[in-house]
């Protein structure tokens, strides 16, 4: 990694792809939801996940509580898909991952979709599905 994901000093010079890389590194790879949100999420972040209120601080409260209650909570990234124009200031990113609250559980398959604009994550959608015990194919959900 050739960047410090907590360094926001050059925020206005970063491309949407660079912001996404930093956020995903902190939130998904390091499971550090607090640092990820404080560094990269805009205060007016528009939330589309039905379980969280809109806004950075309101969402962070929900996420930080989940982390406190589940110290093994982890996001295991499977693939990241970038939209067009990510070398400019605005674009969309998709993160397909396995979210687990404890190491032993199957957890959820999740796709996070984020809109990045001018150095911030400004909008978030997601779809979450519990990973079932059995499947009709041998390929896993991932």
């Amino acid at each position, binding site marked *: 990694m050739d960047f410090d994901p907590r360094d926001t000093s050059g925020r206005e010079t970063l491309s949407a792809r660079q912001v996404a890389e930093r956020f995903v590194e902190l939130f998904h790879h390091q499971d550090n939801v607090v640092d990820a949100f404080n560094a990269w999420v805009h205060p007016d972040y528009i*939330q*589309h*996940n*039905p379980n969280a209120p809109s806004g950075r601080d309101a969402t962070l409260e929900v996420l930080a509580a989940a982390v406190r209650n589940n110290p093994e909570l982890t996001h295991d990234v499977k693939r990241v898909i970038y939209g067009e124009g990510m070398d400019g200031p605005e674009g969309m990113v998709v993160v397909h991952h396995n979210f687990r609250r404890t190491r032993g559980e199957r957890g959820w398959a999740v796709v996070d979709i984020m809109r990045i604009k001018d150095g911030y994550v400004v909008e978030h959608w997601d779809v979450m599905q519990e990973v079932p015990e059995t499947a*009709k194919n041998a390929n896993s959900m991932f």
Partner: protein
Amino acid sequence: MRPARLAAIGLLAIAAVPAAAAGPAPAKGCTTRDVANGFIPLFYEQGKVREAYETWVAEDYKQHNPNATDGRDAAIAFLEPFYQRNPTHKMTVYRVLVDGDLFAVHLRGQTGPDDPGAAAVDILRVKDCRIVEHWDVTQRVPESSANPNGMF
């Protein structure tokens, strides 16, 4: 440039991009976006399951949806009767991202106009002008939400 030459170049450009309508898709020379632009309108918007799958999906398509078996024929066998039994079923595509050999589709499926429906993201991998692999995540849209923004 003379009009005839411009017209000829225009025709060559059009011929290089696979048509979205009936007829076999080419076997190579497609971008991922070409395949997305071919498959999305046929399958999601027009509900033409068999045509969409037979044109754009490889026979040995690898399936990651836990409710489905591998292969194109299995997908058609499940989806075609579902659409026939549910003629008011509709899918709305909200956003599409294309990156390398993958494209992602964020959509809603509804059985009819009063059904809040389900949110889904389909992720599709493309190789040699065909969709060869499919992952998805699906979630019913709940009755209530902690925010006023809707899931889409």
